């Protein structure tokens, strides 16, 4: 069981996410993270999905996603084929930060940054791989962590251009 990333490019139609999710659901696969946004190409939406399974299953899932009428392309990657990041936000009580010099050290060592400071709390932001955001979480939870949220993965390939661009050139 390895972690795979599937990148999906689709037309901007209602219900695509539903169709993609169905393909996972039917096979009892858990989507580990998901991020959806307009892509750099106008009118094309991009889905980045991570899921833990074996290669054969994930290849099949990618092909089944691509089979959906409104899906332009679906690509399957392992972590070594992409550069990826997640973003995490942590809310810590302000007095912990003010009273405890350790918190400041933790932020510095984890290369995190402070987004907002109020009298009640401080919001810390950290980007990185899951392991990185998790490591900071493990430390901050000793300081009365109030809230924690982590985004889905964003990823780009290690090639020089968006793979979809070539596809669109051949298909428009």
């Amino acid at each position: 069981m390895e972690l795979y990333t599937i990148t999906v490019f689709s037309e901007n139609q209602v219900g695509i996410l539903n169709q993609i999710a169905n393909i996972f659901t039917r096979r009892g696969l858990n989507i580990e993270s998901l991020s959806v946004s307009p892509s750099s190409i106008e009118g094309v939406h991009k889905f980045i999905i991570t899921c833990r399974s074996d290669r054969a299953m994930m290849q099949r899932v990618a092909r089944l996603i691509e089979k959906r009428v409104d899906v332009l392309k679906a690509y399957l990657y392992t972590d070594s084929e992409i550069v990826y990041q997640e973003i995490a936000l942590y809310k810590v009580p302000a007095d912990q930060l003010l009273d405890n010099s350790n918190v400041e050290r933790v932020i510095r060592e984890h290369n995190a940054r402070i987004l907002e400071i109020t009298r009640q709390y401080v919001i810390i932001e950290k980007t990185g791989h899951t392991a990185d955001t998790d490591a900071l979480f493990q430390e901050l939870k000793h300081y009365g962590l109030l809230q924690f949220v982590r985004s889905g993965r964003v990823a780009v390939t290690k090639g020089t251009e968006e793979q979809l661009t070539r596809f669109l050139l051949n298909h428009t």
Partner: protein
Amino acid sequence: MANEEMISGSEMLMRILQREGVEYVFGYPGGSIMPVYDALYRHQGDIPHILTRHEQGAIHAAEGYARVSGKPGVVFSTSGPGATNLVTGMADALADSTPLVIITGQVDTEHLGFDAFQETDVVGMSLPVTKWSYQIRKAEDVAWAVARAFYVASTGRPGPVVLDFTHTAQCAKAVWDYHPCTRLRSYAPVPEIQSKPLAEAAVLLNSSRKPLILAGHGVALAKAEKQLAEVAEKIDAPVGLTLLGLSALPSSHPLCLGMAGMHGNIPVNIATNQADVILAVGMRFDNRVTGATEHYARQAKIIHIDIDETEFNKSIPADVAIHADAREALDKLLPLLRRNEHADWRAELKPHAEAEERLVIQPETAEREDCIHMGAVVSRVSAAFGDDAIVVTDVGLNQMMSARYSRFTQPDSIVTSGGLGTMGFGLPAAIGAKLARPDREVVLFLGDGGFQMTMQELGTIMEHNLDIKIVLLNNNFLGNVRQMQAMFCERRFSATPLANPDFMKIASAYGIASEDVERPEQLDDAIARMAAHKGAFLLNVNIDEENMVFPITRGGDPVDTIYVNLTDRYQG
């Protein structure tokens, strides 16, 4: 522009159906589809509407129509329960690659998501069981969406498409401007055929000593029956057919080995595990075909032709995958193939056919004194229609028996629910089949279980005076489940005995002629009277409840582990 004509979404739909050459609409009205039915009223002469007695009947009738005509079947229903009643048919059509354009009414857009009367999430519900599903919210989208629906349903690997037509869009007006859809950048229905796998396939087939062709529904969908015969004859390869591919090669063709799979013909299943090369055309290695995949054709090189890329290596790994329309692939393959002869190989398989004849077919079809077997009925009915009827089946023993003992002379002659195995499919599907080909005899085989799932469609047959010959193989049991209970549950017949009505009286209530066959000696004459009768006819044949379908490859067994009755394994 001055000549821009503003018309309602409903009127637009009617005009498009005409443009797309729709011959029939199968449907059932209701509140949220009323504007469409009102528009239909004005187009009665152009688009005949077949009112079924239940929405499930409408969609199965549309499937029957599509399967025989090759054109998309069109279905109308209202929102809510009208739409939910269609879901089984959608799943059935998706499993069996049947083109349908399904139009469901939907509440006004301002009520969407507010739990309005008869509102359901049709798009959400239908997405997993359709090829495409879309909600039309404004009249401006009607032309675009309907054009796209016909294109998507009927191209590539065909399938069902749903248009959830809001009441708002049915009533609102927009400019009439229709262009059929011919292309979508996100959808490539006809793959560009690659020459490399074709060449590799030719090398394998040309050097094969024991070639086998397995042909499926894709052959019929691509209208590649002629090409299939040409390839088989040129390389002298025997042919096995899947359930849905049964009429892709005439049963009398010297290379036709019969049906593949669980209740298929012994020579096909034996050949599968002896062939050195298998050419699989438009079939998907369904688990009812393969049995245990880890023991399936391990010795053979497999060439797989399919229009749907996701079928490759799904259950059986392909040595050569040819991603193409079956007809194009066979056309291009033919000139690369050497004329060959495999008399020894065919001779090797012959004893298996003879053994099946002796061990299974003869006992099943011969006239008995004590009781009537389904095989005897089916083979006699088939012969009474010159082996030339369109055979429609329900699901279960009746289906396997009619698949095994019907014979076929021309393409597009088998209509059955293969992938989904939908009981209740038969009767409405026969309605669609007859409307598609009024010039051909339509014979429907069903059991007493499936009949009662959609029996109300006798009303549709009555109303339209459809000449459908209904052969009820009546054993007062859910026979297929009973057989499995006999085999695997020590004859604990849990919930399979049926208390049945007097089916003759039911036929008579609908003005449909009928006859009861109690005794074996009555059978031939009754079949002759049915065949001679003009119009619908119900032949209620009382079948021995112990009559079971054999041979069988049991689930999980290798395809060539075959039982010829409850206890005896075929020894070859």
